[in-house]
């Protein structure tokens, strides 16, 4: 394995891990609110959160690029300082996180919707406050589904290419990931390298999907009447 390949693999795992954490924590909370509460504009919010799933990744990348550009709404001129995101690993994290959001939120929301809300009411009557009910009853019941959401998010993040390449570039050793390395290897005609990267991607993807499928078949799924 060449140094470039190794660094691309490391970069991919690093970026996807951080992106997963960044999306999973708020994504779980948002999914819970979407599953349990009614509020004005709920459909609009849930549609916006799912949008990255259907947009071309390059479109998402371009949108992020415009926002982070020097005079964009999140750019250095507006903020008054340079967050230094574009063309760094942070940009790769941001792009992967945005692209992973729909899968994480949707999987978590379906999980929460599958939990009988009467179990939460029961916890309340037993003296548990709202926070303790969420932590002590809802989260344990949702644990498998939430783990599946994290794995799916990680998978989506590790496979991200279009949005990442648009805002983070494809700089070997700095922002090059597995996905962009395959693209470079194919472009430069390095077939051995491309095949090897392909196999790595296949293994990572297979393990992740297999695990999330296993978790989705929850034997302890709460019974609803």
């Amino acid at each position, binding site marked *: 394995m060449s140094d470039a390949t190794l660094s691309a693999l490391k970069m991919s795992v690093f970026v996807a891990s951080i992106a997963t954490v960044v999306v999973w924590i708020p994504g779980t909370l948002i999914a819970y609110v979407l599953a349990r509460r009614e509020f004005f504009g709920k459909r609009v919010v849930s549609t916006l959160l799912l949008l990255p799933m259907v947009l071309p990744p390059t479109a998402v990348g371009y949108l992020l690029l415009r926002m982070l550009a020097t005079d964009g709404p999140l750019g250095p001129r507006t903020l008054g300082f340079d967050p230094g995101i574009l063309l760094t690993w942070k940009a790769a994290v941001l792009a992967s996180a945005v692209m992973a959001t729909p899968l994480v939120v949707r999987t978590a929301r379906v999980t929460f919707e599958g939990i*009988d809300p*009467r179990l939460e*009411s*029961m916890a*309340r*009557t037993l*003296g548990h*406050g709202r926070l303790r009910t969420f932590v002590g009853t809802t989260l344990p019941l949702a644990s498998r589904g939430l783990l599946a959401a994290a794995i799916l998010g990680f998978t989506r993040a590790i496979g991200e290419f279009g949005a990442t390449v648009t805002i983070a570039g494809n700089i070997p050793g700095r922002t090059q990931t597995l996905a962009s390395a395959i693209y470079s290897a194919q472009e430069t005609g390095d077939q051995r390298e491309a095949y090897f990267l392909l196999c790595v991607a296949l293994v990572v993807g297979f393990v992740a999907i297999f695990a999330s499928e296993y978790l989705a078949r929850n034997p302890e799924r*709460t019974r609803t009447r």
Partner: protein
Amino acid sequence: MTTHSAAASEATEPTTPLAIAIRLPLDRFTLDVDFTTSHRVTGLFGPSGSGKTSVLESIAGLRRATTGRIALGDETWLADAPRRFVRPEHRHIGYVPQDGLLFPHLDVRANLLAGARRARRDGHPLDTTFASVVELLELGPLLARAVTTLSGGERQRVALGRALCSGPRLLLLDEPLAALDIPLRRRVLPFLRRVRDEFRIPMLLVSHDPVEVQALCDDLIVLRQGTIVARGEPSEVLTDPDVFPLAERGGYENVVPCTLVRTDSETSVVRVGTGDDSLSVITPRAAGPEGSNKLLGIPAREVILATTEPEGLSAQNILPSRVVSIRTVGSLRLVRAHLADGVPPLAVEVTEHARDTLHLEPGCVVYLILKTAGCVLYDPEARPDDD
């Protein structure tokens, strides 16, 4: 553990009064219920969709849209002007729904202790309660089991135990036995009676089952379309012409307290009533020592009426009696006959034609004919071989 008989003698001792005056708009009608009770067990009876569960959920604090007033003793849980809404976790309620709603991620012990933190914070003697709950509901062998492996009767006992271990001041039982089949229900019923007799906690019981209601309740409230349509002593209310047809499945069954006199190879003899006019009834064989308390179930449609004392009958029980009242229920006539002092009148279904032919009137002397196999004996106390 105190003896059951000592507790049973305090059966009618009043408990903390529960005062309810609530309104809650529901899909098809508005729930508008106003009652006060200080009975140990108050029953809520009524057709499905009459608002019984909504009453319990309002009391538990699970319906934020409920307005009005809810108070247990001097604690006010809900009030208007100024608005007061005590959250469910601060209401100290033990709630037992029809399907138990055990936490599937916890084992039986952890389920029982789910409300332990509140009980301890309130200075409730949790260790004693836990020990007596486990003993009373016979949960010892189940403690380490996963709740998904429990049978229906076991689940309901755990749900009841969990409610009791949270140190409740009021128990809300929402058809706690409805998910069980009839024989199993009859076996779990004694556990509910034990809870009634051992824990001084007022109980509100939703039920469709006349046997359950008569075996447990001191007071019965009937709901229809969100309002109270009848209230009173259970056997009196259940034979009310408007309420009678609501009895589920096999129809109305009289439930009469009695004492086991002796047990032969195939039958038992029980004594109904304690006064001079007490009488013996031959029933199917029942287990238990002489003198033990039983409940005698007599379905209203299993009894035959005669105006003269019949002879040469295979039926073993021919009980002399007097007609107290006759009620019209649709095309049926419900004859209520005095059986013995201290026992509610026995309801018997007859047709309008039979009533006219026999010239039945209040005050008439009648003979109640009862086949041995037509009677059922229930155990008011649990036997150890329960499911």
